[in-house]
């Protein structure tokens, strides 16, 4: 993306992140969404779909699909647990994920199965560094979507 190196990505404090550009707000339950950088990389989101609420997922399992520019990507669970609610408004209007990724464009809520998995997630500074690694092309294992 042109000008990407100089772009300031919106990354709110108080969240954790995974390498697939998911943000997690962890309280009793966990809210999961796509970061500003993540939605920008994917581009204009045309379709969004989720596994049904109640589905048990392990970390890394596919828990939905996301389409942009004729590309269908997977939404991967950042931690293990039960999907307790999916964002039906974002599913009906995926544009919300592009325009308000940390607000109305949240993806799903889940009940974590193992709190220790949180140690695999990144804090704000680590996630910023991860974005920069990919923009600079230094991240060897960076993946599409």
């Amino acid at each position, binding site marked *: 993306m042109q000008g990407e190196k100089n772009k300031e990505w919106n990354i709110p404090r108080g969240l954790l992140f995974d390498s697939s550009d998911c943000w997690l707000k962890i309280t009793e339950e966990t809210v999961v969404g796509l970061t500003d950088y993540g939605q920008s990389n994917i581009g204009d989101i045309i379709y969004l779909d989720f596994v049904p609420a109640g589905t048990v997922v392990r970390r890394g399992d596919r828990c939905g699909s996301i389409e942009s520019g004729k590309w*269908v990507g997977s939404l991967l669970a950042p931690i293990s647990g039960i999907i307790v609610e999916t964002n039906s408004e974002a599913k009906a209007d995926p544009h919300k994920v592009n325009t308000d990724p940390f607000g109305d464009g949240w993806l799903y809520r889940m009940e974590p199965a193992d709190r220790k998995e949180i140690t695999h997630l990144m804090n704000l500074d680590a996630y910023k560094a991860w974005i920069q690694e990919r923009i600079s092309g230094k991240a060897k294992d960076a993946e599409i979507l």
Partner: protein
Amino acid sequence: MKQIWRLLDTGELPAADNMALERVILTARSCNLIPNTLHFLQFSPHCALVGYHQAVELEIEEDYCREHGIDINRRISGGGSIYMDEGQLGWEIFALKNTPGIPKRLDDMYRLMCESVVNGLSRMGIDARYRPLNDIEVGGRKISGTGGTEMGNALLYHGTLLTDFNVDTMIACLKLPLKKLEDKQIRSFKERVTCLKEVLGYVPPLPDIKKAMARGFAEVLNVELMPGALTGEEETLMAGELPKFRSAEWIRLPRVLQESNLTVADYKAPGGLIRVSLLIDHLRQRIKSAFITGDFFAYPERSILDLEAALKNSSSRPDDVRETVRRFFAGNDVQIPGVVPDDFYQALSLAIAVQSSNENNGGNNASR
């Protein structure tokens, strides 16, 4: 030393077999059972395919397909509905995402894959070019469309190459924004696609086409292609996947609420009439596809086709439509005497408003 990729050619297969095979090869690549692969495929009988999230009943003229022996199936990749007859060649890249030379950003990867096709076409004497996001065109006319998906650490990127093409059957079996238009406008639509036969005046032998395409991919991706066959593991996976891809459950898959409505509007600009025909999903506020004709003169001629490409799958919200049109004209040197960008915005707005009145009259085609 160049990486060795497999060159796989499975010949003509029914749609369900080809769709299952995509899942199988992607799975096999993801599990590291096979090397990166360039796959050529063909379809017999002819078929209509919807994109992964699309609804068959909104995209395909099912009665026509049944009457004419046209298979219907669903791709695992994104994008819109397509018609594949025996005169088209499919190509597919299966690769690990971290393959050296394959860009990590989607836009960059689209460009690289499409440049491979452009390179292959140049070997047949065709001056083609990449049209963002995902198309390849010759003289402004589409000759190959592309799309993709991923599984774990592997990706699939594929497309079609029109060799000899029956555009009338395509128009009859897909729900395109043409139904309310006159013959003149339908002729104009037909001119938006082309094929090898039309460009070259003949269809080169299929082995020659495949050879040129393979060399194009090998050069642009900087790999060596070694002919190979499906492995035993892939054959086993295929036996497991095929029943699913033949099932109505797969073909009728989507759980995303959506709709598709056709609307046509005329807008009189000082420089001439602008006729806009849209397929629109008002529930999800999307212009699915746009077809623009009229008696104005656009320079270069291809600019209207580019505007249609910019509008495809864009937001139908008024502010977004205005911005899409503004950005298009700001980024392209387009001259249309007597017509300004706002005229196109007004014409599009009229078409979207017609859509709204259709809804009030119960004119929706919705699907879940």
